């Protein structure tokens, strides 16, 4: 049993300083892959370090496997961890760095060697086994740190941005491998990342932190579709969700973004007022003839980015820069005027004051189409 429970956990460094983590309450189940995301400096690493026992818990209770663990020593917790700054032993070579923990745990030499080779194979480290950390590139160091955690096969594993210095290809590969290993050993994984793809694809659940407070916890796709507030909405999804203020008239059932742009939508629960609306870049469509749901509007492009498979272009809505993401490569130039189509069903609506979600987009999946392609 290796569930990790945080009950009202808070953290401050020194008495006079502000809370880094404030009343954090979450229950990470045994064998769960739990992803933590949040802006830089929001307390992710601090949280991991508290779970690992490297930082004392200022307030609240930490339970591991159901037992109060606030005062357990790190080694009692049987955890492995990938540090954000790697924390490799500079005096040991790659091989020794990786098996360091195994020696401590008195794993037999054969087993040690086996795990070492497996991990190095997976991480393309085999050629560097005899190097010292200072003779490695940034990504290689990170991989050593990762290997160290992988070979330990501890029931709980904490990873702090473990793939940040790897290239996309290797990263994609590692995503799969980490997930596989985690499943294989039933590891409880707590995983900090800044990468949208990792956040969306790896975790069973995801937690969004901001300034030491939980913003939302849930399945990644649910969070994507139903962001609890504007912070989550703009933080999850890349490019970020477009937002602006809009006036909803309950009578005419119209969302008025500006005098030219009005969308008709039925929001029975909402009263007439100003809201914040959000629209994801991929929901800004290419106008399709004869689609009654679409509202077509002309915008002037002021910036274009070709990503290869997608094209991002931005334009102004009210005082906000909106970004649209279209498939394929569109050779627009700044200054081009184009027509885009919006669909009221795809809007998220947030309260203007509390910034909480009051209505989320209703079009997420391609149910009908899906039927078409499924054999």
């Amino acid at each position, binding site marked *: 049993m290796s569930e990790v429970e945080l009950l009202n956990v808070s953290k401050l460094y020194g008495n006079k300083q502000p809370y880094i983590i404030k009343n954090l309450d979450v229950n990470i189940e045994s064998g769960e892959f739990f992803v933590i995301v949040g802006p830089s400096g929001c307390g992710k690493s601090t949280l991991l*370090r508290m779970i*690992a*026992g*490297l930082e004392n818990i200022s307030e609240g209770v930490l339970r591991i496997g159901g037992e109060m663990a606030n005062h357990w*020593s*790190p*080694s009692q*917790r*049987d*955890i*492995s*961890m990938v*540090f954000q*700054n790697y*924390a490799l*032993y*500079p*005096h*040991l070579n790659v091989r020794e760095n990786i098996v*360091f*923990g195994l020696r*401590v*745990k008195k794993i037999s030499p054969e087993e040690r060697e086996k795990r070492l080779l497996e991990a190095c194979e997976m991480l393309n480290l085999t050629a560097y086994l005899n190097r010292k950390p*200072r003779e490695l590139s940034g990504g290689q160091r990170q991989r050593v740190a990762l290997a*160290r955690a992988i070979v*330990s096969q501890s029931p709980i594993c904490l990873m702090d941005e473990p793939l940040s210095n790897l290239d996309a290809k290797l990263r994609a590969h590692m995503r799969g491998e980490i997930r596989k290993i985690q499943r294989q050993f039933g590891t409880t994984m707590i995983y900090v990342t800044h990468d949208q793809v990792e956040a969306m694809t790896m975790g069973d659940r995801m937690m969004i932190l901001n300034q030491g407070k939980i913003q939302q916890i849930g399945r990644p796709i649910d969070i994507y579709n139903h962001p609890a507030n504007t912070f989550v909405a703009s933080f999850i999804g890349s490019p970020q969700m477009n937002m602006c203020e809009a006036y909803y008239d309950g009578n005419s059932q119209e969302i008025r973004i500006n005098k030219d742009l009005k969308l008709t939508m039925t929001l029975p629960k909402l009263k007439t007022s100003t809201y914040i609306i959000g629209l994801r870049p991929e929901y800004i469509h290419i106008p399709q003839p004869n689609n009654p749901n679409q509202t077509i509007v002309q915008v002037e492009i002021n910036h274009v980015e070709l990503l290869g498979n997608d094209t991002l272009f931005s334009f102004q809505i009210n005082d906000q820069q909106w970004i649209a993401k279209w498939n394929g490569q569109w050779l627009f130039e700044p200054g081009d005027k184009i027509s885009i189509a919006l669909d009221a069903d795809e809007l998220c609506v947030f309260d203007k004051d509390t910034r909480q979600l009051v209505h989320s987009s209703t079009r997420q999946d391609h149910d009908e189409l899906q039927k078409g392609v499924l054999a």
Partner: protein
Amino acid sequence: MENPTTTGQVPSLNMPYRTFWEKTRRFQVALLFLLPSLILFSVFVFYPLFRTIYLSFFLTNQKGLPTVFVGFDNFIQLFQSADFLQSVKATFLFILYTVPASVVISLFLALLANEKLKGIHFFRTIFASSLGVSVAAASVTWLFIFNPTMGVLNRIISLFGIQEINWLADPHWALLAVSMTTIWLNLGFSFLIIFGGLQNIDQSLYESSSIDGAGYFYQLRRITIPMLSPTLFFIMTVSLINAFQTFGQIDLLTGGGPGQTTNLMVYAIYKDAFVNFNFGKASAEVVILFLLILIVTLLQFKFVEKKVHYQ
């Protein structure tokens, strides 16, 4: 993945001519930094050394001036002299007694002082305190501690029913007694240095290994000691050299006796130079001592520094 897009002609590598002045720039800069040291060393270390080497080939008169050139006679005589060989032996024994013990004990103290406890600052200061006491004052104090009848040491051992020991006058014990004093004297400094080294070790290494479940001694063996190795190497080298050159304690505690068991080389040199005013002989002794230290230190650098891990 052969044949990358670079197919351009190899450009004519017209290395502009660099003058000797430019090529040795780094050396010049280094020299600037080293200049104050070099000048002072030349005047106060190398010049006396050369003078010493020069004198070692002469007999000197009572004013210490060279008079008769005797070639290697001074050296030959030294190697034939039982006294000198005894002092070499005593020196090595003394090193054996003091250096490892000082390093190990101060490492132990530093580790203790590295614990995060309330009031640890106080203990750190105490541990370093012997550094604040001069050799002379310390030796005098120890002289009383070693006093065969009233000394604390004998009082304590007599509590255990052990016979009183004539620490400083018994040839079996004198060198040990002097070593004990020396270790105490060294502790403050070695402690301070090792403690500083300990505190400089990146904390995240301990964090990482404690997560791996490494216990205290495992960390000590596999992280602390290797990471501390530059410091340990330093303190070992310095202690070694200092041990070779111990003088004050001997002078005050035993005067080289009993039976020359504590007549360390530097003390012998001092006697030859200051009391006997036999500079030729003293110089030859210095040269031999110098070479001995040189060899030992070279061995240190050659074999031990390999094991030292620098960042």
